């Protein structure tokens, strides 16, 4: 028996919005410690890792570890039927082939249940080592979202360079080139507006903008995003979910002599 009750149901709605365009099907892993998910996008270039700790739920019961395979598009359809103020409860039998979502309005006047069929999903589980990164930048998530969106109108790839003064995003394309610099800035009225650089050594890596745009859909989850980079390692784009856990996106850097992968005539 698995049962988890989340007072702030909107969190789950936002999580699905953040993941559903990147990953079509994934296994939600339930354990006494957490509800978690790890999945690659279809092109195997990006990886998403989400953890919601059991102590962040209003109620959490997990008798034995189970894995619930779901189509994230269908799950998102379902969650769109929940109000933003609704309390959401997930329920699944250990041996069942479905999961139930209960939505309760705050005044208990309306309650809904949605039963979703589970799927068998073959998925490789990857071990993500605890790495020290050369550079970690925390910045407003809305700022990051806007930058990658803006640069996408100019080019396909972005070069991200971190120095002790700040972070620079550069791209170029048919019509010209662009550089956006954001300076370290800790003198702010609200902590969520700060931009903080934590640097071991300067680093400069290139990434496909369309993945970053996809990751940035997680912005509603947190006012700050953290970007972690080391030479020749994947970029980690992380959003903390207060009192609950986090969602991290991993993106392999672009190899320099790589052919543009969107070339295939589709």
């Amino acid at each position, binding site marked *: 028996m698995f049962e988890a009750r989340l007072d702030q149901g909107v969190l789950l709605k936002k999580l699905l919005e953040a993941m559903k365009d990147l990953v079509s099907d994934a296994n939600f892993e339930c354990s006494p410690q957490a509800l978690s998910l790890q999945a690659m996008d279809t092109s195997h270039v990006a990886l998403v890792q989400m953890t919601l700790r059991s102590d962040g739920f209003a109620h959490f019961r997990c008798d034995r570890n189970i894995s619930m395979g779901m189509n994230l598009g269908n799950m998102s359809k379902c969650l769109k039927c929940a109000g933003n103020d609704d309390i959401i409860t997930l329920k699944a039998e250990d041996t069942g082939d479905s999961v139930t979502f209960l939505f309760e309005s705050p005044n208990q006047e309306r309650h809904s249940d949605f039963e979703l069929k589970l799927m068998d999903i*073959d998925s490789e589980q990857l071990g993500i080592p605890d790495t020290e990164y050369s550079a970690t930048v925390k910045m407003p998530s809305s700022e990051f979202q806007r930058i990658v969106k803006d640069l996408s109108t100019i080019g396909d790839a972005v070069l991200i360079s971190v120095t002790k003064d700040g972070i620079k995003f550069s791209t170029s394309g048919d019509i010209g080139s662009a550089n956006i610099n954001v300076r370290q800035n800790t003198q702010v009225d609200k902590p969520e507006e700060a931009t903080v650089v934590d640097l071991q050594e300067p680093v400069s890596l290139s990434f496909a903008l369309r993945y970053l745009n996809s990751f940035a859909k997680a912005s509603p989850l947190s006012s700050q995003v953290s970007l972690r980079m080391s030479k020749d390692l*994947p970029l980690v784009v992380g959003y903390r979910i207060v009192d609950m856990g986090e969602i991290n996106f991993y993106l392999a850097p672009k190899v320099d002599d790589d052919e543009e*992968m969107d070339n295939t005539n589709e």
Partner: protein
Amino acid sequence: YPGKVEKAKRAEQSVATCVLEVRTGQNGAEPQLLLVQRPEKGLLAGLWEFPGVTVSAEASEKDRKDKMDDLLQQLLGSELSIGEVLQRQSLGSIVHIFSHIRMTLHVENMAVKVNSPPASRAAGDEAGMPATKWVTQKQLQGEGLSSSVCKVAKFAARSNASGKQGIKRFFAAVVKD
């Protein structure tokens, strides 16, 4: 609630298919891809496609690989066995809708090193065996391929391209209990 509203259903079909690539390792020699001709009757009669075999909808990845091994063994006989498998990976699946069939194509990609380029076989060369031929990626584009085969080819090409910058090479696979 008394049963859901019924919709007209297409027959479901699961097919394991493999983009098999052989490399002779000779300088400048392009990899060759195996195509097999469909029977003269039935769906997409006579068209060329990547080798494929129907599997049950519940088949696991291992089941599919086993069935594909059998098929390749049958198609290529001992030819393939002399080669060293350089790479083999499951690329995921594609759904293709025909008018009456909903076909799920489980695509894998396999690269084999051989000493000399393998031979094609015309229809009728060997009783009961389909015609086969080997083409380069370039020649593939000139073939009159059905749209489902085109999808597979693109899918494999893209997966290969992304392989170079795939995320998997950065992390160790976890073996689940």
